[in-house]
C-alpha cells in the first residue's frame, strides 16, 4: 500500500468519523470540536489533491474563522451548556432513511458513470496560477465575492447589533403569540 493510499484512507476515516460525531454528539460544544477536526481532515485531502493553497485557506478561513465563530455562537446561546434532554428531533428515522437513500443514489450514480480523467500531471505552482486567475479570468467573481463579503458584514452587523428597542422586542413577540393562537383557534 503506497503512502498516498494510506494517507487517503486515514484522512477519509478521520473525516467520516469526525463528521459522524459532529452530527450525533449530544453536546453541541463537542460537535464544534469535531467539526474542526473534520475540517482539518478536508485540508489534508486538499494536500493530497495537490492543492496546497486551498489547504491553507481551508485551515485559515474554516478552522480559524468559521469554527471559532461557531464556538462563540455556541457559548453565547448555550443557556444550559449540556444536559439537554433531546438533542435530536423526531426526524431521526426518516432523516436516516433519506440521507442513506441519497447516499445510495449518489454512490450508484458514481459507479455507473465513467468520468473521462486526464493522466496529465497537475500544473505546477498552483498557488501562483490561482493568483493569476483571480486577477484575470476570474476577476469578475473575485470582485463579486468582495461585494458579497461586504454585504454579509453589514448584514451581520445590522442583525446582531443590540437594538435600542430590544427591551420592547420581548413585548412585541409576546403579542405575536396570542394573535397566532387566536387564528389557529379560528381555523
Amino acid at each position, binding site marked *: 500500500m503506497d503512502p498516498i493510499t494510506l494517507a487517503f484512507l486515514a484522512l477519509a476515516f478521520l473525516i467520516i468519523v469526525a463528521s459522524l460525531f459532529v452530527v450525533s454528539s449530544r453536546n453541541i460544544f463537542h460537535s464544534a470540536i469535531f467539526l474542526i477536526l473534520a475540517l482539518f481532515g478536508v485540508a489534508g485531502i486538499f494536500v493530497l489533491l495537490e492543492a496546497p493553497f486551498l489547504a491553507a485557506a481551508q485551515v485559515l478561513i474554516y478552522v480559524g474563522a468559521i469554527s471559532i465563530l461557531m464556538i462563540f455562537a455556541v457559548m453565547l446561546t448555550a443557556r444550559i451548556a449540556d444536559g439537554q434532554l433531546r438533542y435530536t428531533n423526531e426526524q431521526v428515522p426518516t432523516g436516516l432513511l433519506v440521507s442513506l437513500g441519497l447516499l445510495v443514489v449518489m454512490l450508484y450514480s458514481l459507479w455507473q458513470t465513467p468520468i473521462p480523467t486526464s493522466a496529465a500531471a497537475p500544473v505546477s505552482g498552483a498557488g501562483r496560477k490561482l493568483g493569476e486567475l483571480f486577477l484575470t479570468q476570474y476577476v*469578475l467573481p473575485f470582485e*463579486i465575492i468582495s*461585494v*458579497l463579503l461586504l454585504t454579509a458584514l*453589514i448584514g451581520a452587523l*445590522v442583525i446582531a447589533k443590540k437594538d435600542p428597542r430590544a427591551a420592547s*422586542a420581548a413585548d412585541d413577540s409576546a403579542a405575536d403569540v396570542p394573535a397566532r393562537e387566536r387564528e389557529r383557534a379560528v381555523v
Partner: protein
Amino acid sequence: MSAFDLTKFYADWQIILPECFLFVWALFVLTLATLGKKDEPGRSGTFALWTILGALITAVWVGVTADGAAFGGTFVFDRLAVVFKEVVLGGVILTAISSIGTVGRLEVHRGEYYGLILLSAVGMLLMVSATELLTLYIAIELSTMGLYVLAAYHKGSRRSAEAGLKYVILGGISSAILLYGVAWLYGLTGTTNLAAIKDAVMNIYMSTGGFPPAMTLALIFVLAGFGFKLALAPFHMWAPDVYEGAPTPITAFLSVASKAAALAAFLRVFFVGLESAAMAWTQMIAALAALGMIVGNVTAIVQTNIKRMLAYSSVAQIGYILVGAVARDTWGATAISFYTMAYLFANMGAFICVIAFSERTGSDEIADYNGLAARSPVLAAFFALFLLSLTGIPPTAGFLAKYYVFLAAVNAGYLWLVIVGLLTSVIALYYYATVIRKMYFPSGETASTITVSKSLTLALVISTIGVLFFGVFPGPFVGWIQNAAQMLLAGK
C-alpha cells in the same frame, strides 16, 4: 499572460456599468447612513431611488451601445439581459418606493436597509448576465445574502426573525445542493462555461447515446438549487413562512425581483447550457410545474392571511411560468420572459396594495379586507385589477402571458400540462374572487375610510400602467423579447 489591454479593460467594465453604478451608489447610501446622526426617513430612500433609476438608464444605455460578452465570456450583455435587467430594476424601484413607510417606522438602520436592497440588486443583475457557473453561483449568493438579512429586518418581531432563520437555513442547504450539482457538471464536462458545457453534454450524448446517472443527478441538484430561488414546488416550503414573516416590501422584492433574476439564470442554464440534455429535464420540469400549480393553488385557498395566500399563489405562478419551459424553444423562452414581465407588475402591485392596507390597519388578514371598496375605492380597484391579472383575465397582461405559456406547451405536445394549468387556474379564480368579493360585496358593517400614501399611490400607478399596457399593447415589447429569445437560443 498577455500584456494589459486597456481597450479590452474598458470594454469589459463598460458592459458591467449598471452593476458598478448600483454598487458605488449603494456604498454611498451606506456611508450616508453611518454619517447622519438621526437618519431622516426619506433621505436614503430618495438616494436609493435615484440610484436605481440611474442604473435603469445605464442598463438601457449599455444595452443599446455595448452588446456583447466580457470577462472572457463569463458575462454577457445580450438582449435577454436587457429585458431581465429592466424587470429586476423595475422590481427594485417598486420595492424601494413601497418601502418608504416601512423604513420610516424603523428606529435604526434605515440607510442599511436600502443599502442591502441595492447590494442584493447588484447580485440579481449579475445573475441575469452570468454565463459561467462560478460567476452565476456567486451572484446568486450575493443576491440571497442581502435577502437573508432583509427578511429578518423587523428585529422586534418574532415572525421576522423566524423568517430570517428559515430562509438562511434552507438557503444554505440549497446553496450546498446547487454547488454540488455545479461540481458534478464541471466534473462531467470539464468546464464551467455554459456554452462549452452545451458542447460537452452533446458529446456525452453522442458517444454514449444517453446520459449517465450522474448527469441526471447533477441536473436534479442544479434544478433543486434553482427551485429554491424560484420557490418551485416541492422546494417552495420556505416561501410561505418567509413571505409572511418578512417586512412586506421585502416579501414583494423576494417574490418578484429575486425570481425574475433566477428565471433569467434558469433560461441561460437550461435553455443554453443544458439544452442538449433537454430530454433529461423536460419531463422533470413538467412534473414540477404541474406540482407547483396544484399545490400552490390548492393551498392558497385555505389561507386566512393575505401574504400567505399570495405566497402560495406565487408558487403556483412559478408553475405556470415553467409550463413554458417544456417548449424549450423560442416560444418557450419568449413566453417565460413575457410572463415574468406580467408577473412583475401584477404581483408587485398586489403586494403594494397589501402594504398600503396594513400600513393603515395593521392587519394582513383576508377577513379584514371586507368592504375595502367602500373604505378606499381606489385601493380596492387597484387590488382587484392585480388579482385579475394574476388570474389571467383579459385585458390584463396576465391573460396574454398565460395564453402564451399554454400555447407554447400545446405546441410542444404537452397537452396534459396545459389541462392541469387550466383546471388549476379555475381554483386560482376561486380564491382571488373570494378576496374581490370581500372587497366589493361586503357583509356587515365596514370601518372607516383608508387613505393611501403618495409614494404607494405612485407605485400602484406604475404597476397598473404596466399591467394594462402590456395587456393591451404587447406588440412591440413581445417582439423585442422574442428577438432576445431567438438570440439566446442561437447562442449569440
